[in-house]
């Protein structure tokens, strides 16, 4: 067990816990955009950055990726953290002015408008990479990835064409915080148009059912299984199976 102090409160957690998890245990709220419990920490949105004091060294670190250590003092809402977080939210608001998620976060932290330029009013991707990582780490398909670098960076499928590796499982759409990723519907439509002899059900490809050939022409709304999985599992099947270790 490791003991540390977060915002003046002492907490004892297991070794290997991240600072974010420890803070949430205390009920301390730290904003995140690229964090999901089922997926490895990525440290890209930087909203969870906190001030960490070890000995006499103070540093800014992303709490989602930082494991706790004995004697650590964490400040999640020091003046400099709050100031930086506000500027960061302004940057997000300039990037995605329409995004509901971003607007909500801004409202919560007192950011009403941005001083920065908006380059694309319709942009809604915050580049958190959850879709890319869920596809790679959880589903294991690796059908999408980042393309380009810097401000040109975007999420895409190879050569902008959906391909066989995409199972149409919809995990990417499920984890996307802003609703930018819409691969599931596109891929299902594609499958329906190219009906062949191999009508493998997407739940089968995900490992959620042992074997199933789609009898419904990939019209999932007619499929009984599709209608009850999410309700039954309380989560997207890919994520639910991963977290329960069934896969």
């Amino acid at each position, binding site marked *: 067990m490791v003991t540390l102090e977060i915002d003046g409160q002492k907490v004892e957690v297991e070794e290997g816990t991240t600072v974010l998890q420890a803070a949430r245990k205390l009920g301390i709220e730290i904003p995140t955009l690229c964090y999901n419990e089922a997926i490895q920490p990525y440290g890209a949105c930087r909203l969870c*950055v906190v001030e960490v004091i070890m000995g006499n060294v103070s540093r800014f670190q*992303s709490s989602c990726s*930082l494991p706790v250590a004995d004697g650590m003092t964490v400040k999640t809402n020091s003046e400099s953290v709050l100031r930086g977080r506000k500027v960061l939210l302004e940057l*997000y608001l300039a990037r995605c002015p329409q995004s509901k998620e971003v607007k909500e976060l801004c409202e919560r932290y007192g950011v009403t408008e941005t001083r920065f330029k908006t380059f694309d009013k319709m942009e809604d991707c*915050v*580049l958190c990479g959850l879709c890319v990582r869920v596809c790679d780490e959880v589903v294991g398909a690796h059908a999408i990835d980042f393309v380009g670098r810097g401000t040109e*960076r975007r999420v895409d499928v190879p050569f902008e064409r959906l391909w066989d590796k995409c199972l149409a499982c919809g995990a990417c759409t499920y984890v996307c915080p802003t609703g930018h990723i819409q691969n599931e519907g596109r891929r299902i439509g594609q499958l329906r148009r190219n009906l062949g002899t191999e009508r493998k059900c997407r739940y089968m490809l995900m490992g959620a059912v042992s074997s199933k050939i789609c009898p419904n022409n990939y019209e999932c709304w007619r499929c009984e299984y599709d209608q009850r999985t999410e309700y039954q599992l309380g989560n997207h099947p890919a994520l639910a199976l991963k977290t329960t270790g069934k896969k």
Partner: protein
Amino acid sequence: MEGVMTSRSGVLESLRAEGVKSISPDCSKITVGMATCGIAQGARGIFAAIEEEVAASKLDIAVESTACIGFCQVEPIVEVYLPGKSRTLYQQMTPDKSRELVAATARGEVKKEWALCTVEGTAEGIPAMKEIPFYKKQLKVVTRNCGFISPRSIAEYIARDGYLALSKALGMKSDEVIDEMSHSGLRGRGGAGFPTGKKWSFARNAPGDQKYVICNGDEGDPGAYMDRAVMEGDPFAVLEGLTIAAYAIGSSQGFLYTREEYPLAREMMDNAIESAKKYGLLGKNILGSGFDFDVRITKGAGSFVCGEETALIASIEGKLPNPLPRPPYPAISGLFGKPTVINNVETLATVPQIIRNGADWFSSMGTESTKGTKIFSLVGKINNNGLVEVPMGISLREIVFDIGGGIPKGRKFKAVQSGGPSGGLIPEECLDTPVDYEHLEALGAIMGSGGMIVADDKTCMVDMTKFFFDFLNYESCGKCAPCREGIRQAHDILEDICSGEGKEEDLETLGELAHTVKDFSLCALGGTAPNSLLTTLRYFKDEYYAHIKDKRCPAGVCKKLITYHVDPEKCSGCRVCIKVCPQGAISGELKKVHLIDQEKCIKCGACLEACKLDAIIVE
């Protein structure tokens, strides 16, 4: 084992004899500096001319090539060795001059008028290397072989005490090697300045059978070429250092990561690896010690961020070069999840000398916190541009004015950018600061990998900052939001200021933005990116105000804020400016004062360059 080692050292002994002979043969020898900088200045043509001349007259003169000796301003450089007399450097050679030089060498004479200095021996009327200002305050430790030996020849490297360190290290316990490194006080020369011995001991103590060592030769700073020069000039030293590092941490596989844009450096390193393998200095059972080590060269994909440790590792693994949050540090979990040591080229080239000469020798150079020497590439508005190696603790003023020879055309010094695009701009009043990691950081700059760009009074600080942000905006990997979005927004604000659309509150916004990018970014690219902005806001705020309030660029650089005029007092009406103007914006008759049409003028500065009478004014 002892027996094996002696038979191997027999090989080394014969190589050493061969090397001594080829460095100082019985006949005369002409050596051409053929590093990338020399080749760019026409060294290939000179080499061909010399070879042709020697062959045509059937002279007994050896012709060789070497690498960069540092003084890039006076390239192409040719060295002439006259046995028993002197070894002389000649500057700014041309094929014609070199043909004459061959004839003089055949007669055993020196050409005093073209000589730069003598490297050994004396020649009348030619100063010794240690006497000329460019070399006087330098201390060649890492670059001791650069430009002095043939980089392709393992024999010449061994003749200058090469591979003594490796045989010494292999006779030590690996912990002793690490202790020696820790004791020497060597800190990483790639930029961050992390103690090398400490890094090695982390990797050594990390659990795991397979460990890796990586030489980071992904030098991306504009205007910096220290690593290239070392790889081109002394590749065996880098390789020897990497082998010692591998032995110290217990690794059997190394990687050398260099840029696609460094073909010559790669060729040299490739050749070094092959030669070392041939003589049992790399591969299985090195020098009969039972230690196995192999090195593979990996080509970079041309991205600045690949120089960052974790991005570099991802790049070797074949993934997108996106930095990862730390911990875990590469020394614990690096390449393919194994403990990995990544050292910069210059750091590794220093290692053999520390092992050979001892930690005390190394720590006797430099300052309290920063030991040894550092190579800087001195570029920009400076008289002697080139690579300089100086002991730590030397002042910036000595580097810029004594070694660098000051600012050309009698202009005034304004600032020096230390640490490449992520460094800070240091003004004149701070020039007496001693150079080491802590002092530079206190000024808001960084040591970085050693790029030093000098700016004169005709350089606009806002424009220069904008240039660095343009570079960083292009090179940011885009993974984390503060770096990706913050740099783009700061660049846009700077662009507004440069085009006269800046507002007073922009300065506050820029300051806040800079701090957010610095504190919140994932890796060191974002963490150091705002340095140029923060230092110019600190030292050159009046220039920002001039742009914003007076809509004026004091240095006369920002095109939207300047106009070109003809000074009626000075204009002689020679029509030179009319001829060079690409827009036809200047009118006037011969011997009458000319006039610039502001509607047509695109402010290219051609007239300013062309006018011999300084009659063009920039306002």
